[in-house]
């Protein structure tokens, strides 16, 4: 019965079990207890898991050296709702003009054909959504967001990042993926990134390229 709860029972085994349960009220009662326990364990608060990516990557060696430990400093909590983090209750309604700002855009030095950009977004006005981005340094830019799947946190590509009124989103919550880099990016480089919003239209921001070891500090300050 335990295996059945987990969907791990073979068909023949299931048939044998069902046959037994027809005659055995003691086992049926036991089955009911197990199911109650099962529901209780499953229905749990989604645990807020800290985002340690930056600290982990900062500790990773670039070539061949043994990794060293870095005290985990990233305090950004992964948002466990599907869209971007919203802080304030809406007053004045979502139809007011959006007032979006992007800052602190930072890209850790890529080593392959893909890169990642972290940036902080805020919206002091009405509803909007980030629907795309482009840059001359890469062929495409993908939006990625946090999603949960049965309590597990995943990163997934998305068509739009909702930017609700009162949004304040730390750099590091959602991010942009650069695909098909057209030139190498080195720490100290800067490049233009154009963000496209559904209502606000185009917004330009500048991205700083940094080392992986500098990334945690930059995300903290953003």
């Amino acid at each position, binding site marked *: 019965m*335990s*295996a059945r709860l*987990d969907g*791990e029972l073979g068909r023949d085994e299931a048939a044998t079990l069902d046959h037994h349960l027809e005659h055995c009220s003691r086992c049926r009662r036991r089955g*009911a*207890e*197990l199911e*109650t*326990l*099962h529901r*209780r*364990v*499953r*229905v*749990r*608060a989604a*645990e*807020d*898991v*800290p*985002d*340690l*990516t930056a*600290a*982990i*990557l900062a*500790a*990773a*060696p*670039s*070539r061949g050296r*043994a*990794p*060293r*430990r*870095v005290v*985990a400093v990233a305090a950004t*909590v*992964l948002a466990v709702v599907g869209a971007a983090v919203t802080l304030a209750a809406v007053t004045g309604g979502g139809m007011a003009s959006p007032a979006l700002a992007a800052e602190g855009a930072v890209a*850790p*030095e*890529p*080593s*392959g054909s*893909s*890169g*990642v950009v972290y940036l902080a977004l805020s919206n002091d006005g009405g509803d909007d959504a980030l629907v795309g981005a482009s840059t001359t340094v890469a062929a495409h830019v993908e939006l990625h967001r946090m999603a949960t799947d*049965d*309590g*597990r*946190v*995943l*990163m997934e590509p998305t068509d739009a990042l909702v930017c609700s009124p009162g949004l304040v989103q730390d750099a590091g919550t959602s991010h942009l*993926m650069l695909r098909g880099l057209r030139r190498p990016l080195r720490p100290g480089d800067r490049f233009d990134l154009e963000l496209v919003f559904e209502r606000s239209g185009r917004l330009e921001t500048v991205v700083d390229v940094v080392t*992986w070891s500098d990334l945690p500090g930059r995300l903290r300050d953003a």
Partner: protein
Amino acid sequence: MDLVTRQAVAARRGDRTALAELVRLTQADVWRTCAHLGGGADPDDLTQETYVRALGALPRFRGDASARTWLLGIARRVCADHVRRAVRGRSAMVRAFTRHAGGDHAEAHAVGDLLTALDGDRRQAFVLTQLIGLSYVEAAEVMGCPVGTVRSRVARARASLLADLATAASDDRTSGRQHAGPG
């Protein structure tokens, strides 16, 4: 090849962005495994140590097995190295769950309390299949044991939990306390 494994293979070749993606895709599972199996040690530390070890082992990762179970196997061994019997499981578990957020953790506490009664192999099997959501086959890979062993450990864990709940309920009846028992 699933996404996580693809990222691991790219990371093995030196792609730092793929490494960052690998961490992002897996850290929730690794952190929760460390929170439940770490015997009260700080899950942040155990998580970091897991990835440090994984980075060291990455050159030997063959990519023909799932990177997720590979990583969770490392996490399990990191936790086993840190488990100390002297630590009081309940308070450490509650600390670990409440450290990082300000939400309602009543249910998380309740589950944490439930699990403190389990230890060793039954706890591992139960946590990996019920809280991390691995199949019995995946859990067997992580634990390095046959699938049938996972099945029996999970069943014994459930039996143990039900027995503890029944004991707690009857204790409370005796003392006149209210208790949120099963059912």
